[in-house]
């Protein structure tokens, strides 16, 4: 009982968190290398060397930061990523937390991420970190809205807000075909929510690193780890909601999910390397004028199909 209810879920989430974040770092380097960026050493060792370096480095101070919030924010973001991973079903029975409302819980992770990212930027008491924080708050709501409409769309055919039921409902036809608008919308929002690549406005180069511009040493390692882990959690949600989760022939269910998550991650990381960063104003217009109406269309489509 304790094994199934407590120990196994914790192991599953921690393994997905640690290995997943490492795989994101490796995959990003492999993609960069494929695209012709100069690389030295092995892509498998480089993330470990970087981690070791950040552990060697001291955590710096700024002038009068909110120490508790500043140190806590990366850990909270990591905890949110872990919460997201906890609701991803690896098979019909292997789910860390098989809540009846797991889709809603993922929605709350997205909402709380806004609070934590703001906290990270605000508590440093530094200019660029603060601007990065405000940028995310200005955009976070639009990400959450689009994401929620899209996820309600996949809950309709399942007649449930439980990710396991959402996966089961795709036994005959995956949602990526049933609701063709859904996955592209969710992927774009995923880049925004994890502030990655073209939608990395909170930690961007024009803000010298944004909310992370003043962070060094172990807190930076935790922040980087948490960002990568959130990307993994997001890919798990996207694979479960649209790509049939663990469903697939020949291979064991968890392996199918891993392959689908890798495909989503590779797509997100590739987009991150190929597209320029959108200016915040463009991003707001894209979200509210283009993606949100498309999310409505997707929802109406899903509703009509469910009838």
């Amino acid at each position: 009982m304790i094994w199934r209810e407590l120990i196994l879920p914790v192991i599953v989430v921690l393994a997905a968190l640690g290995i997943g974040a490492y795989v994101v770092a490796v995959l990003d380097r492999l993609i960069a290398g494929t695209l012709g960026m100069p690389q030295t050493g092995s892509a498998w060792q480089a993330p470990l060397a970087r981690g070791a370096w950040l552990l060697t480095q001291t955590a710096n101070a700024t002038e009068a930061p909110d120490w508790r919030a500043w140190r806590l924010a990366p850990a909270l973001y990591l905890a949110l990523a872990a919460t997201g991973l906890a609701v991803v079903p690896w098979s019909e029975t292997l789910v860390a937390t098989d809540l009846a409302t797991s889709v809603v819980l993922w929605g709350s992770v997205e909402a709380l991420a806004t609070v934590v990212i703001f906290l990270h930027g605000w508590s440093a008491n530094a200019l660029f970190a603060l601007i990065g924080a405000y940028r995310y708050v200005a955009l976070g709501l639009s990400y959450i809205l689009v994401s929620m409409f899209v996820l309600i769309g996949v809950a309709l055919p399942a007649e449930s807000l439980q990710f396991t039921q959402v996966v089961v409902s795709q036994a005959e036809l995956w949602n990526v075909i049933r609701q063709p608008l859904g996955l592209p919308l969710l992927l774009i929002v995923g880049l925004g929510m994890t502030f990655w690549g073209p939608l990395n406005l909170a930690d961007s180069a024009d803000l010298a690193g944004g909310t992370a511009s003043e962070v060094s040493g172990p807190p930076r390692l935790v922040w980087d780890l948490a960002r990568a882990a959130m990307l993994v959690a997001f890919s798990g949600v996207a694979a479960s909601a649209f790509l049939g989760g663990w469903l697939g022939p020949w291979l064991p269910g968890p392996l199918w999910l891993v392959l689908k998550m890798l495909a989503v991650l590779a797509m997100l990381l590739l987009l991150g390397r190929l597209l320029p960063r959108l200016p915040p104003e463009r991003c707001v217009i894209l979200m509210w004028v283009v993606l949100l109406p498309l999310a409505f269309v997707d929802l109406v489509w899903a509703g009509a199909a469910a009838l």
Partner: protein
Amino acid sequence: MHGEAVLRQLALAPGIERVDSPRHASVLLVAGGIPPYLHEELRRVHDQLPQPCATLWFRSEPLLGLESATRIDELDDLPRALIVLHRELMSGRRGSSPRLLPDQPPNPWEGLGDFGQGGEGMMGGTPYGRPMAMNMHDDIRDGLTLDSLTFRLGPFFPALPPGMKAEITLQGDLIQTWSTQLVPYPVSLDAVFLDALQRPVPIAELELARAREHLHRLFHGLRLAGLERLGRQALQLANTLTLDSRVDGLRRRLVRCGFFRLSLSGRGRLTEEQARKIGGFAARATGLDDDLRSEDAHYRRLGFTPVTQAAGDTRARWQQTLAEIEQSLVLAKQAVGQDLHTSETGSVETPHGPWTDRRPEDASRLLGDLLPGLEWGEALATIASLDLAAVSEWPLEAWAAAPRVASHEARRA
């Protein structure tokens, strides 16, 4: 003065990661001499590096207190030296660079009350000599008035031209005011532009150098836009530029990824007066056809007419940049066929504008009129799309100049 050349060399070196904040760095590289009036600012940047950290001085004199730091004079040795320093720091074989400034607030405490707010309630005051974010200005965008925040940035902020410092007031991330306090360092041009003032020079060599300068600026703009891969391609193209080089591929990739559509139409638009003051390609992107090459008989023989754009905004300037690179390559190829040299001396159209009796001057003070109303990212993209620094009276030294293979080939042809 040659720091940009060093930066470009490192951008193509594997194993070197250029970071945007000193908090993310392990080694501080100082490339070229730093004027004494900026030593205090450099000390501040140095002390922002988290320990353990090291400094590397390339053709530069270490600051007082850092006499034992590593110095280096050979550009080719630079990437290796940086990697070695990082490894030594990581393995503990090298101690950290000492702190140069006392760890205390840069200004004395001037606040009143428990939180230093200095005024009644929670408002007012200048704790530590800096004004608090206050609702002082009317919003210039949509009427949603936010607290204004005034700060100084530079002279070593990577997204600004080297040496430039500005006092900026932001409301949200919208620029309310911009006041340039220190102008950027003058930039050195390829020696062929200075030679052209004295004697006829091969048009092919001049045009290849011009295309290279434009590609260097494009590299910086692409990196700022988050397109590091395309930026590197622009840089590689600049380093291997020959008469047969083509920019079609680069242009296609820039269009495909949406680079030209990043900035909204009309953002960073120059007035005619501002365009004339800045001169060069920025003026031509505003619709002015001022170009000293039009007055050169041999350029006219090549059928040269200035390329222009009408809009005068950031997008138009990048389009102009690409168009001028293409035009330079065509001119260079034609000129080699006819073995043409410039026919005029005493004046030359540089990539930074016309050089007649006076060098192209600094235009960074114009930013005070140009940037208010723009978002922060748009403002930086606007600055990257302009050549604001004055031109130095000294040419680029041989070690910093781009490979001249192409030019030699041009002469041989």
